[in-house]
């Protein structure tokens, strides 16, 4: 399983094998939400999530 350091707390965040482009992955240590970004070859990296918008919610 691919993993990446959390940009906030440096914990290892595992990127699930079956992750989908755009999926939110949460740092197990600090709770920071990051987004899976896949390139054309399918390689995944974690990037910052888009800023919360005013009409977002449940």
């Amino acid at each position: 399983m691919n993993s990446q350091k959390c940009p906030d707390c440096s914990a290892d965040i595992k990127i699930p094998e079956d992750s989908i482009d755009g999926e939110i992955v949460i740092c197990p240590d600090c709770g920071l939400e990051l987004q899976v970004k896949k390139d054309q070859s399918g390689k995944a990296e974690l990037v910052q999530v888009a800023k919360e918008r005013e009409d977002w919610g449940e």
Partner: protein
Amino acid sequence: MLYDQLRPEERLLIDAARKKSIKLQLYDAGQTYLNALEVDCREPFEAVVLQRSVSFFRSVHLTALLESRGVNVINSSRIASMCGNKLLATLELAKAKIPTPRTAIAFSVESAIKALLEVGYPAVLKPVIGSWGRLVAPLKDPESARAILEDRENMFPLYQVYYVQEMIQRPSRDIRCFVIGDSAVAAIYRYAPADEWRTNTARGGRVESCKITQEMEDLALKTANVFGEGIYGVDMMESDKGLTIHEVNYTTEFRNSVPATGIDIPGLILDFAVRKVRK
């Protein structure tokens, strides 16, 4: 399933679909465009679509488009429009005589101050559209109320629809009861985090399992029935007069509720959607 972001909730739904061997097609709302006049063309959508957009405006508009093409969307655009607007939801609750906090609406600072005299202090100011406790402000007295209201005068006009509500004297928690179809399937207590009065889990609120009492079940089902068959997170508070409903969520989040309650909420949501496909 329509989505804006694949949050843990959507991941749980995808995993549940896999376990149940249900074909779950994913549609990214941000990548979708539709001809509004092609009302007789369902393609490429399935007969039933689970609407999981995190954006209220996207959700309502896209759902209406899909419904015009004969797609059965869970939840419907009517449900999303009503529950996504606190005033419209309050009006429906009031008509059905469901207990809800004293609420007034005003459209200027001066009239809001007058309305607050009737609602009483402390009160709460809420945007009519908004979630996760965003811009929900306690109004403790006329001075602080005026300061907060005057601030809102400089914001987008939506925030000048002043929805003011009595602040219910409650424990430092509220209750969310999950309703799927005609069943109240799970409930949680949401505890406000330290140095915070709002209980939203998006603000760090802590979750604990809550036993569904008869009163809770009756009230949650009656509330869901007001808006129509669907999937809801019915929020209620424990007041000295009994339970009172303060919000009805139409795209409820459940990432923390599944481990807390042990209830397979995503699985039950999919079972409900599959029943709709078969109807």
